[in-house]
């Protein structure tokens, strides 16, 4: 107690009122010093690697300036087709994931906000959307693979060959199915807060003016949710575009996707001495993802007006 009262005047003396202009500037500078460790860390482990990629994309292995890496990325059929396939896969699964995820989010949001259903779905979505990777690929092998549950069910129990050869799972179609599987829960996590933002008063207002469900979604719900939905779509796109683990675990022959191409380049760099083509592709990925994420941030700012 005595200690507290003794030091109280000292603390007050250092308060804003008694500070001179010079010491205030010093204080201001000292305030920023406390942020140095964080910035240094992010600089070292995030910004520096990004710079290494960026610089590497424009240099030869000997360190000279070159555009060869970038030119190869745009002219080599393998890279161009991998880029296109990645984008195609990302668009398809983003749209499918967004639609199914939004429906699921709506079904959950209409329920008790603190109920079991919601908590279970949200937690399960977190796991499936963000921490699956390799494990989800195995889940699908256990379902649709050569010895999978569904495959065996059709061949042994029903004895009816409706399913195509189980090797479809290892193709782009298979990837699309597995990617959609983790896009749906991601959509739920991103979209649920926006649905929660739709207030009961708005339903009531719409209903009291004679509006049915269709009128509500057409004139109130739809326009309010449109920016959130679009934003979530972009987020899902980047999520699928940059995914690597699932594809690596599922695809063992060839490298149809851009992330697999980067990994290939990365792993064979010593043998072929093409390290920096990988960096050019990596830079290309950063550019695609950054543009989409910037659009996402803009839309999100607009969408957040209604989510209070």
């Amino acid at each position, binding site marked *: 107690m005595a200690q507290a009262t003794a030091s109280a005047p000292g603390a007050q003396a250092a308060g804003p009122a008694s500070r001179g202009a010079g010491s205030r500037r010093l204080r201001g500078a000292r305030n920023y010093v406390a942020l140095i460790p964080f910035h240094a860390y992010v600089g070292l482990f995030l910004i520096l690697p990004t710079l290494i990629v960026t610089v590497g994309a424009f240099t030869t292995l000997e360190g000279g300036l070159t555009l060869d890496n970038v030119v190869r990325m745009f002219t080599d059929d393998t890279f161009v087709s991998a880029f296109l396939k990645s984008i195609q896969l990302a668009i398809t699964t983003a749209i499918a994931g967004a639609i199914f995820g939004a429906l699921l989010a709506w079904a959950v949001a209409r329920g008790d906000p603190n109920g079991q259903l919601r908590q279970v779905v949200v937690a399960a979505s977190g796991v499936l959307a963000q921490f699956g990777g390799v494990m989800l690929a195995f889940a699908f092998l256990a379902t649709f693979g050569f010895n999978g549950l569904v495959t065996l069910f059709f061949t042994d129990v029903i004895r009816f060959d409706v399913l195509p050869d189980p090797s479809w799972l290892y193709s782009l179609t298979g990837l699309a199915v597995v990617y959609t599987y983790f896009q749906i829960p991601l959509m739920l996590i991103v979209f649920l807060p926006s649905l929660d933002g739709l207030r009961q008063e708005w339903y009531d207002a719409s209903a009291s003016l004679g509006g049915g469900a269709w009128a509500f979604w057409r004139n109130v719900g739809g326009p309010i949710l449109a920016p959130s939905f679009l934003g979530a779509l972009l*987020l899902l796109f980047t999520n699928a575009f940059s995914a690597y683990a699932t594809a690596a675990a599922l695809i063992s022959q060839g490298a149809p996707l851009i992330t697999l191409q980067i990994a290939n380049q990365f792993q064979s760099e010593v043998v072929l001495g093409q390290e920096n083509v990988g960096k050019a592709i990596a830079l290309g990925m950063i550019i695609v993802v950054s543009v989409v994420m910037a659009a996402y941030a803009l839309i999100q700012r607009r969408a957040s007006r209604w989510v209070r």
Partner: protein
Amino acid sequence: MTLPQGLDLGAAAPDGGALLSRPPRGRRRRRSRLQLATRIAILVLIFGYLILPLFAMLEFSSRGDYGARNLQNFQAILDYPDLVDGIVTSLEIAILTVVGMLVLLVPTMVWTVIRVPRMRRVVEFLCLLPLAIPAIVIVVGIAPMYQWMGRHLGVFGGSPLTLAFIDIILVLPYAYRAIDSGIRMVDVATLADAARSLGAGWPRTIFQVIVPNIRGGILSASVLAVALVLGEFTISQLLSFRTLQVVIYLLGKRDPYVSVAVSLSALVFAFILLYVITRFAPGAGERARRGVEEEPAT
């Protein structure tokens, strides 16, 4: 015909709200039955799609010899020393990541709120930046740094535990959101003023006064970090470190049954972790009361 009548009532009597809502209520009941049916249909179909592969994992991994059902594939997890090593390595990395993330992020975030609010957006931007830089790109850029560490920092430099450095970066977006929502729940600036005016130094203010008040956010951030580290594959595989996911991946080619058993166990473990934080996350009660979440999660 209800429309003009309703409007009339509302205009005539400001407290005719209960009356006003009567016609829609009847309609809403009819609509709500349709809505309930739609909800159940959606939940069954889409949630069914999400559950099916998980159920298949259980079915697949519990297959015994000659059509028997047993848990021998789960017991076999312990027979693979690689797998046990991978689990231990990943848990160690998880602990380092949690500690590093908290030490780096909590004082910085609290400090920006109290002393330099104008830096708040900068810190937020840097924390969300990993979302714009795919993990596989970070690997390509960071590999030269790891080669350097491996050569110059001896045993430490080549240890898989150094993955914590990158995992801290990967967890920043999620940890930032979680801690930020914890900070928004309490008036951190006033708490700090109170502690300072009673003579506490900055370390004491942050660690003994503010941290206990935002422990919900800190707990969420830590759990998310653990789950992320246990699921991390891209970086460990390409830098050739044998973490849990890499071992599962390699084992998948040798013994798919056991690898599915481990995968299912890891997913269930992550689910339990996340379920606990959705129940006890900061603002869970608040959200229930208002029916609105304060901010979209990423």
